[in-house]
């Protein structure tokens, strides 16, 4: 069986050539991927056809502007695409797409998901306000050499699912010799598309797999250590509220979150608005009230709703105007709630989101047992 294809040459150009080849052979009809904007300081997603490929299209942009899963969801929410469409996604975007497919916000029919080994991404603000050319260069070297990205976002530095494993086509860079990449099919569909592409066939990808598992172990340790020390800084009401204190209740984090798909959000609803009288009473009870209220309720409530599917993509923190470490909070919450169900978002499409299924016998630790009759002293 064809396990992979090694394509020599510059990476980004090679990927674009591969996609152009697929478009020219009519194997796919369109490509959805980010392209640099005219100003050169940011990226946007474009749906491109054979003759419409933009020169500025970039399969691996150094920043995450719109989360790819949101774009895919926008495209297929009302039904599948009719023609084969390839989508270039970061690993976290790919995992979010899989999560959204489980909750029926994405239709994967006719979509070809392509992902790559991601070295991380710069904070959006840093990129837009910084020197894009210089940052592009740093990113491209890191992409090619697969080294750690200096100045990446916090969640990126502790990312433990950095490879495109699972996608229809995986663009393999880790374990490579540089100046080239593998095309690894992850499904029957991916295999068909790779067939006939010029490159040297490989039957053995052990180098890559070993390199990935080695780095995964390293990153997992790093992630756990970082999250543990972060947890110490947010434990208890005092610390947690101090961390959240700069929040301006704009709810941007939930709006850009791919997993927060509800069209009508409880936290934006009328359920939380009350009359002045009611708010005054609350203030009296608490000896004062921060307005707008429900800051902690919003963050904790959102965690109970979506932390099980949180893929730690960091879109929330990029969108935060007040520098609240939202992505770290959610990474921490996600790690702990997902561990309860041994669930990993985006791992497999067959794994149901824990909120949607149940087992008859489980979670006894979370019930308070009725051990003996309790007699109150009267």
């Amino acid at each position: 069986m064809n396990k992979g294809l090694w394509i020599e040459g510059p990476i980004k150009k090679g990927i674009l050539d591969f996609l152009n080849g697929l478009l020219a052979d009519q194997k796919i009809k369109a490509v959805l991927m980010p392209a640099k904007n005219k100003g050169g300081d940011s990226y946007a997603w474009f749906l491109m056809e054979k003759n419409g490929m933009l020169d500025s299209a970039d399969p691996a942009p150094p920043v995450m502007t719109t989360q790819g899963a949101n774009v895919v969801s926008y495209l297929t929410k009302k039904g599948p695409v009719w023609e084969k469409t390839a989508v270039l996604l970061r690993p976290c975007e790919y995992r979010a797409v899989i999560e959204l497919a489980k909750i029926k916000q994405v239709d994967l029919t006719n979509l070809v998901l392509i992902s790559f080994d991601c070295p991380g991404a710069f904070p959006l603000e840093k990129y837009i306000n910084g020197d894009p050319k210089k940052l592009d260069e740093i990113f491209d070297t890191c992409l090619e050499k697969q080294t750690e990205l200096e100045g990446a976002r916090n969640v990126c530095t502790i990312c433990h699912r950095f490879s495109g494993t699972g996608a229809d086509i995986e663009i393999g860079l880790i374990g490579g010799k540089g100046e080239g990449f593998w095309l690894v099919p992850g499904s029957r569909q991916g295999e068909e598309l790779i067939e006939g592409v010029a490159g040297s066939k490989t039957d053995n990808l052990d180098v890559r797999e070993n390199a990935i598992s080695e780095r995964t172990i390293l990153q997992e340790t790093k992630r756990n250590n970082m999250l543990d020390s972060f947890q110490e800084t947010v434990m208890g009401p005092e610390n947690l509220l101090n961390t959240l204190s700069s929040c301006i209740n704009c709810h941007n984090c939930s709006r850009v979150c791919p997993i927060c798909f509800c069209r009508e959000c409880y936290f934006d609803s009328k359920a939380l608005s009350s009359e002045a009288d009611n708010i005054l009473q609350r203030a009296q009870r608490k000896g004062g009230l921060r307005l707008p209220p429900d800051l902690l309720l919003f963050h904790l409530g959102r965690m109970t709703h979506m932390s099980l599917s949180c893929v730690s993509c960091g879109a929330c923190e990029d969108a935060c105007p007040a520098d609240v470490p939202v992505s770290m909070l959610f990474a921490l919450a996600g790690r702990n709630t997902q561990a309860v169900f041994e669930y990993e978002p985006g791992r497999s499409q067959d794994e149901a989101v824990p909120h949607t299924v149940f087992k008859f016998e489980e979670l006894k630790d979370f019930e308070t047992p009725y051990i003996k009759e309790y007699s109150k002293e009267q």
Partner: protein
Amino acid sequence: MDEKKEFTPSIIYGLCSWCGTGGSETAGAMHLQYAENIRPFRVPCTGAIDPVYILRALIEGADGFAVSGCHPGDCHFDSGNYRARRRTAVLKSLLDTFGLDSERVWLRWVGHGEGKRFADTVNEFNDHIKEMGGNPLAKRRDT
């Protein structure tokens, strides 16, 4: 210690309208006494209690929140209580993560006929919360 004894916690008790409320009715019919400072909160099914309700109660002044409903397998809607159990598990592990006293939330099944069990649960929970003291979130103005 005296202060603690005087402390009357405010407790919300989420009861499903089939078994939980039934349990409280049976307790009444059996003339069992239980703490008076609980506020029953009747919902169609424990599965309808979104963790956000519990959070909101805890943030806005409740010292404890107990949830009771049909035993597993008895749910009037077939599987609501299993879902409630999953939601409570998520909420409790979140509260643990941020050091917010997950012990202020209890989940214990009470059947329609189990009046004794209902009264015991109320008293036990009430004493348990008394022991824990007031909820620090309730008095914070920056929530």
